[in-house]
């Protein structure tokens, strides 16, 4: 059964525990920020910030709302990054989209292709990084770090089918409470997202594309057309071919020696 996350913005208090929990578990460094007239920080996702809360002041006196939406890789089924990656470094592991750091050559195609702006490279020429769905925790029967940390249950981790059902119910409740534009996002977008959202308003209000598209053809065309790319591709393939053995050995070794402790 596919797993997923459900972010219910109507329950998010913008505390950003999820943002810190991600850094804590993945040992990501703090980035240097400035106060630029908003609580939102860092301003962008980056190679060392895989998730963040977007803050938005919306509406006028009386109907005023302060919106918080957690942002990160959506783990799309039809994932642009997977489609455009020349080396296969970006790929699905079950329902999760992962980037093999060893295979990544830092070309940046996925960075450009992602319709959600969720993939970033460590400058100047680093590999692409993004939310990994805490795949180590998930495959060990734990919740992702952000979902666990969330005080209000605004982030739920679970069976996708259950979450979709719960989300539909929640949307109905919100509509009944007067959020007439409330909607479930991610159920069908891009073949279904790994992150589902209960939104209290239209997706665009939350900076989400109303009709996200897979960015395959364009980008693929670009790199398939280039001779250079072909050479690069060949080189990478050969390089990976030799790397592969080592990797499998490493996996087998880890299996025999048991779990990892840092």
């Amino acid at each position, binding site marked *: 059964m596919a797993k997923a996350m459900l972010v219910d913005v*109507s329950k998010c*208090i913008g505390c950003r525990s999820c943002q810190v929990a991600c850094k804590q578990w993945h040992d990501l460094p*703090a980035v240097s*920020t400035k106060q630029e007239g908003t609580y939102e920080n860092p301003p962008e996702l980056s190679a060392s910030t895989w998730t963040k809360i977007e803050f938005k002041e919306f509406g006028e006196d009386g109907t005023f709302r302060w919106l918080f939406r957690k942002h990160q890789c959506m783990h799309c089924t039809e994932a642009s990054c997977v489609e455009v990656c020349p080396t296969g470094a970006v790929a699905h592991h079950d329902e999760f989209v992962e980037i093999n750091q060893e295979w990544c050559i830092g070309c940046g195609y996925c960075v450009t292709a992602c319709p959600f702006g969720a993939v970033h490279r460590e400058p100047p020429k680093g590999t692409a990084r993004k939310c990994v769905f805490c795949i180590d925790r998930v*495959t060990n029967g734990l919740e992702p770090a952000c979902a666990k940390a969330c005080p*209000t249950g605004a982030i739920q981790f679970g069976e996708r089918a259950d979450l979709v059902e719960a989300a539909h119910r929640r949307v109905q409740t919100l509509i009944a409470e007067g959020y007439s534009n409330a909607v479930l996002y991610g159920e069908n977008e891009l073949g279904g997202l790994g992150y589902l959202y209960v939104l209290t308003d239209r997706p665009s209000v939350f900076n989400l594309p109303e009709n996200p598209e897979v960015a395959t053809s364009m980008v693929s065309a670009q790199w398939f057309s280039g001779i250079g790319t072909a050479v690069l591709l060949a080189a990478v393939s050969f390089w*990976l071919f030799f790397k592969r053995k080592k990797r499998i050995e490493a*996996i087998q070794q880890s299996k025999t020696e048991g779990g990892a402790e840092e």
Partner: protein
Amino acid sequence: MELTRRDFLKLCGGTAGGAAILGMLGPESFLEAAPIDIPLRKRIGEKTTICCYCGVGCGAIVASDENGKAINIEGDPDHPINQGALCSKGTALIQVTNNERRLDRVSYRAPYSSDWEEVSWDWAIDKIARNIKKTRDENWTYKDEKGRVVNHTEAIGWDGSAAVNNEEAYLFTKFARALGITYLEHCARLCHSSTVAALGASFGRGAMTNHWIDIKNSNCIMIIGSNAAENHPLSFKWVTKAMEEGAKLISVDPRFTRTSSKADIYAKMRSGTDIAFIGGMIKYVIEDIEGHPENYNMTYIKEYTNATLLINPDFKGPADLDGLFCGYDASKRAYDRSKWVYQLDDKGIPKKDISLKDPNCVFQLLKKQFSRYDVDTVCSITGTPKDVYREVCETYAATGKPDKAATIIYAMGTTQHTYATQIIRSYSILQLLLGNIGIAGGGINAARGQSNVQGSTDHAILYHILPGYLKTPPPDDVDLEAYVKHYTPTSNDPLSANWWQNYKKYIVSLLKAWYGDAAVASNGFAYDYLPKVEGDHSHIAMAEAIENGVVKGLISPGHNTAVSGPNVNLEREGLGKLDWLVVSDLWESETAAFWKRPRTAPSQIKTEVFLLPAQASMEKEGSITNSGRWSQWRYKCCDGPDIARSDLWMVTELIKKMKELYDTEGGEYPDPILNLAWDYGDPPDVHKVAQEINGYDLETGQLLPSFANLKSDGTTSSGNWLYCGSYTEEGNMAARRDVTQTPAQANIGLYPNWAWCWPLNRRILYNRASVDLDGNPFAPDKSVIIWDPLLGKWVGDVPDGGWPPMFQQGTKLPFIMTSEGRAHLFATGEVLNDGPMPEHYEPWESPVKNLLSGIQSDPVVTIWKSLVKGDVSDYPIVATTYRVSEHWQAGQMTRNLPWLVELMPEMFVELSEELAEEKGIRNGGRVIVESARGKIEAVAVVTKRFSPFSIDGKKVHQIGMPWHWGYMGLSTGDSANMLTPNIGDANTTIPEYKAFLCNIRAK
């Protein structure tokens, strides 16, 4: 096996595959390399601790490596309050222990030096002990000028802390008293002293009545003077639960906050106008009670509150006297309170009128007092839109039905005003009229801001009390008998339990715990050893005493007064007048480094400063008490810097040295020091301290199970009677982690076997008011206790007084800590300084005239010599201070943590778009904010979340700013307290941090 992050990602990535490459590499690579058992990056953790930040008291689990260094800290999934979650601060805990900015040496700053020098622990302890002794001996007073024995020194101040464990707080109190210190304070003065006074005056105990999980049982939650979503984020687990069940959330705040963002009703209210706001609600409820008594719990109002009791017919209030109560003496700025009393019958029992019609009954007096608080007047004062205000009144009053519950959650937006105690009194009155005290989902939930501020208050690091809320003896109480008589209330009413009649048992047991064999009946159990204190010795008074050279040495463990004090420029200067200053902390705090602050020449500052590296909460063992009175044990989980020590160790080393010095060299009044019982082993064993706090039967040597066992004849000891039962022969109750409950307990989330809660593990205070006269719950679906006639006892929570229901013989009224057994709508007698009922006054600095009376500001507050008042013509804008979710208090615990600094990097000021436009201020630009006390620079956050108020038809702007910043740490910035006035509450002198005047301009 050791795996680096990169190794892991290889493994992790190796299980994934790309369609394009897959084909090229052949099938075997990805199929083989797709194991599901990806190893965890790190161990999750198994040792448990409690978060060191706010008073919610969330549990965390810690994993450490073979060197003792923490490698992972995350929420404790078994903890009933947070259930694995944590807020951003709690989630960043690992950066408290693993942080290169932690103090890694013992430091000493010589007079006039511009640098720290590294010294040894031995050297520092010896030098500090000698400094204390010298100052104490040179400034010792045996008798005051009236010839009364006082046995104290006014020359040493103690300031801190709510950040230490209970056992440390207890030893601080004990140590300071043995030294004869009178200026004894910690941050509880600055955050919730008004809570203790007001809730004590209303119900008998000065603490949060319910607990965090209980919020889920509420039908309506009013968050006023609190921004719980930001400052007590895990409270929102339970607010959210309640809302999922249909509860309404009301957010009352001058500014639209993260709390408001989740509210059903957001009511804006100008800072400092809470009494007007609540007063109007009280008026609404009283009128509705008269019109529709069937919608209210009349049994509760008549039987459990003092609504029916008659007050002295000569009593006059603000409705008669234009804003004043009777007995005011303008020359003394004080009241003669002799008419604020009950009419007594010939047996000495208060008279009553059960019909509530007598013009002198409390109900009628209340009605008269608040009759002036009509919607138009209230909204002209508060600036709340009238339709919104009416909606608040209706929604909230709907919980007057016997089976409905509403709770008030408040914090520093309430507690830090010149009339703060009276604001909390107004909450109490509202809640009592609605029958909301003692029931599940009800109560007054004072959100404590520090992890152990409840415990440090219980253990009395405060000049005016001894542990367990016993009173500090004044010089007029010449011996133990006089003192006990002074503070033991009497009641002639057989229905009143009058619990404080046990006062003597508690004070004698305390003296036995402190002075052991030296405390005997013939010397009044060493009563003379206790320093006698008269007059105000609270935070602001101490700052004045430092400024005036009365206090010459200051001990300040885990407290950062150079950021948190009101009018902080004055306090920073004061530190330079001290002979010596001792600070213990995890970081180089602003207080420790005051001599090198910006625009200061160290060469001009004489103060000797000691900076002692302390262990963080997860590096030592002990208990802390959360806001809901749960004492929870935390274990040593990891190691901090090698050199760091616990405060328990530091205070033990100090007393050892002091005893040695007084023993070998003599000195003034050495007896309380030499005879001080301090037998906890070496190094001190925190369990022995916890056991002393609990108390012993001195004849058998057994730990006592309950304060019911305490005696006044010297055969029992207890360091704090309220904690008697916390560490018994059955073990350490605070360490319990059992989540089992009966179905009725589980229904309301009581968790009676998790940790331990004072008093006697009672989770909901005053719970005998949750049942009718037959002992049946008013709200059967949320029963707290119920009388089981077969068993002949109460089941559910621990009953607040085990007597049978009211209809039976030998029963007692439910508010057992008040002398008449009822809760106080009207606080009689010598309890509050500024009135038996709340009355609206304007903040000390206000842009408008008081619309309710001719009395502009609270008539009894102390005006200190150093206080400067700003005029509205120079400073037309209302300002307030607050906190953000990502930082904590005076900032050193968060401004040194990179992840939190990333989230909130700089000091800022929030203002409305209208004001920004008037002043030509742009969002993100730099601004100067100025008050009569000082000026600061900050980044402007121009926001729709602030909007101007319409006050009496006039536009009034308000701005707000966090107060976390200072000149030390990873993120530095100006302190908001450079602007705040050093004026305090009429009852507890908690400073006015929340409403003052300023001006703002673009830089």
